[in-house]
């Protein structure tokens, strides 16, 4: 009874969250019709990259010509700019004659600005009721907070890459440092303020958090069914002793699974059974494992839920499940074909030395390669199919992927009635906390203007050339993702790519986001530390007596990176330059 109550409690919580996400993300309709008439002075504030500046304070002052306001004087009116940078400030009536009116615009991390209202403009306001002021461009201010936030972010990337500390701990440390500097440093110097807690929370993308959480619950149900073991053994049967065919089918299984589950889970489940098949065939297990993990990193790019980086990109740029399928899947298949040919060629000697599987080992493998919970698998299959339909067609009714994932997870919990404690344990809370802390740290560098500086520099380097911008984004992402953690990297690159998409002619098609998606995920094949799935695979292989060294992975993985990213680049050129 208690168990059932907990299950219903969890289901209600998930349903409530799904409803909340759906409700709060509905497009505003008919709201503008009821808005009161515009106040007198209307304008907007942007930064030098053309991005709107929200949360800026706009103050209306009055004074004698040439005078500056007294420190204790009250402004005539005060408003804050909206997230889109717009403001509307009312003028008091009647306006005293012979005074000068001006607007002062203040915002942390920007230089203060002032707009003097000339008498003609004031007269126009009084006559016509309102006036639209020219757009104001606020220059960035590089202060101590800028350098501290930059240092914290760079330090976080470095510590994740070289230390033994858990990623979540590193991200939490980064977020805590940001708050410590803002709250403890601010009383000492205004230049030490980065942002406050409320502003930090605005940078957390809850769509990403709930999508990841929902998918974790779905995965937890599927992984217990024995599906992966069954699929791997089916691959062995299908290959009929041909090692190259076995390799190809296992790569396909790992890849397709990664398109819907996260790569780490896929490899956690695929690696032990692949090792057993390889050992039984007298084949070096690395011959199967390294291509499998590379396929997982490549094919995962094809869907919105296939990689955490795609989830980040999709949510930031409003790229739907369908968009990913339409614009990336053909390129991913092309890259996968290249990867299969490369893998078969690269491991041709090992693949030629397989032996017959001994009957005792074959029997043991077959015994284990069974679907352990067919009922659960059937139900998960139905729910999975419905979720897929909602992912594909949900955009027509503005259904967010996170809502679909939450509804799917809830439906599975109610239908299957698993051990709810186990299901809650299956949600990797550390990953969710990692994402939240990461969003805060990336928000900090966005707030202080580092992202604007990077965007500005890249924008000047690539100029107006879409081809050059595409090549830069895809290859820089690929190479950097091979050496730094790709999730923080992608999170930081999103606003940069957003800016470039706004200024480079032809980039409004969101092509640069697809370039980032391909580069950041396929770049993981470059080195052993390039993707978590690589490390997990290496960990299991090492325990089977087949260590994957850094050099070994680099030798096999880097050419794969070059081949797959080159093929994906060709597809993106065809899709967005030729077919567009």
């Amino acid at each position, binding site marked *: 009874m208690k168990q059932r109550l907990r299950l219903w409690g969890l289901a209600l919580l998930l349903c409530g969250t799904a409803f909340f996400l759906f409700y709060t993300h509905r497009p505003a309709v008919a709201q503008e019709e009821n808005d009161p008439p515009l106040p007198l002075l209307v304008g907007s504030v942007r930064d030098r990259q053309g991005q709107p500046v929200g949360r800026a304070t706009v103050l209306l002052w009055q004074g004698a010509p040439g005078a500056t306001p007294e420190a204790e004087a009250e402004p005539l009116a005060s408003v804050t700019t909206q997230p889109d940078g717009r403001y509307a400030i009312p003028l008091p009536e009647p306006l005293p004659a012979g005074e000068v009116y001006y607007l002062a615009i203040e915002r942390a991390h920007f230089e203060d600005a002032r707009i003097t209202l000339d008498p003609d403009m004031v007269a126009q306001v009084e006559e016509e009721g309102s006036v639209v002021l020219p757009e104001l461009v606020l220059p960035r201010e590089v202060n101590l907070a800028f350098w501290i936030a930059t240092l914290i972010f760079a330090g976080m990337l470095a510590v994740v890459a070289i230390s033994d500390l858990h990623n979540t701990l590193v991200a939490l440390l980064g977020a805590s440092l940001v708050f410590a500097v803002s709250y403890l440093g601010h009383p000492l110097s205004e230049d030490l303020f980065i942002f406050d807690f409320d502003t930090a929370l605005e940078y957390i993308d809850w769509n990403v958090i709930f999508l990841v959480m929902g998918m974790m619950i779905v995965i*937890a149900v599927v992984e217990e069914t024995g599906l992966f073991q069954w699929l791997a053994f089916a691959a062995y049967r299908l290959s009929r002793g041909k090692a190259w065919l076995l390799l190809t089918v296992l790569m396909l299984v790992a890849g397709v699974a990664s398109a819907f589950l996260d790569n780490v889970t896929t490899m956690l489940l695929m690696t032990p059974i692949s*090792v057993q098949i390889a050992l039984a065939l007298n084949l070096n297990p690395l011959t199967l494992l390294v291509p499998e993990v590379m396929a997982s990193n490549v094919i995962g790019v094809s869907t919105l839920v296939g990689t955490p980086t795609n989830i980040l990109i999709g949510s930031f740029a409003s790229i739907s499940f369908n968009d990913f399928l339409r614009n990336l899947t053909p390129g991913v298949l092309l890259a996968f074909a290249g990867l299969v040919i490369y893998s078969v060629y690269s491991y041709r000697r090992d693949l030629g030395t397989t032996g017959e599987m001994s009957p005792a080992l074959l029997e043991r493998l077959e015994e284990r390669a069974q679907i352990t919970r067919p009922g659960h698998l059937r139900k998960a299959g139905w729910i999975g199919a419905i979720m897929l339909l909602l992912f594909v067609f949900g955009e027509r009714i503005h259904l967010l992927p996170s809502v679909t994932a939450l509804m799917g997870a809830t439906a599975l919990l109610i239908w299957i009635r698993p051990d709810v404690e186990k299901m809650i344990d299956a949600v990797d809370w550390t990953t969710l906390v990692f994402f939240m802390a990461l969003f805060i740290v990336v928000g900090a560098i966005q707030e202080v203007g580092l992202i604007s500086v990077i965007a500005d520099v890249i924008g000047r380097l690539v100029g107006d050339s879409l081809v050059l911008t595409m090549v830069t984004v895809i290859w820089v992402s690929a190479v950097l993702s091979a050496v730094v953690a790709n999730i923080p990297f992608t999170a930081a690159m999103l606003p940069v790519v957003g800016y470039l998409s706004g200024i480079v002619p032809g980039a409004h098609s969101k092509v640069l986001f697809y370039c980032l998606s391909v580069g950041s995920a396929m770049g993981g094949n470059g080195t052993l530390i390039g993707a978590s799935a690589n490390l997990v695979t290496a960990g299991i292989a090492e*325990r*089977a007596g087949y260590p994957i060294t850094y050099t070994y992975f680099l030798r096999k993985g880097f050419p794969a990176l070059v081949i797959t990213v080159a093929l994906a680049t060709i597809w993106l050129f065809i899709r967005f330059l030729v077919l567009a």
Partner: protein
Amino acid sequence: MSGVLCAIRGGPGSHPTIRKAINLAESKKLPLYFLYVFNLDFMRHTSHSRADTITADMKQMGEFILLMAESLAAEQGVNAEGIMRQGQVAEEICELGKELAADYVILGRPKEERNVFTQDRMSELEKTIEESTGADVILVGEG
């Protein structure tokens, strides 16, 4: 109880160790035990929530590796028992060595120094096992 305890990791590096253990058990007419130890330390950077599932899969992989070693022993007419433990390698070897009152503990000596298996650590491990189990420790070089 007494016998030969052979700790294996799988892979070609374990073959000489397994053969040495089989030959020793055969010549001394002692029971042979293969030990496979696994842990999930490699998951420290990733999702711990998958621990239950991966533990089951790692056990299956360990059983398979043990089965292969048992098959090799059976080919030479030696009966061997495979034992699997989860934990730290050194601790589990000592623990099982004591439980079995093993006469011999056979370990592979990695050809190259890697991870924790430096020559110093191997000598230290050898000494620890000898002191805690009273067994003779034989280190076998990788093939």
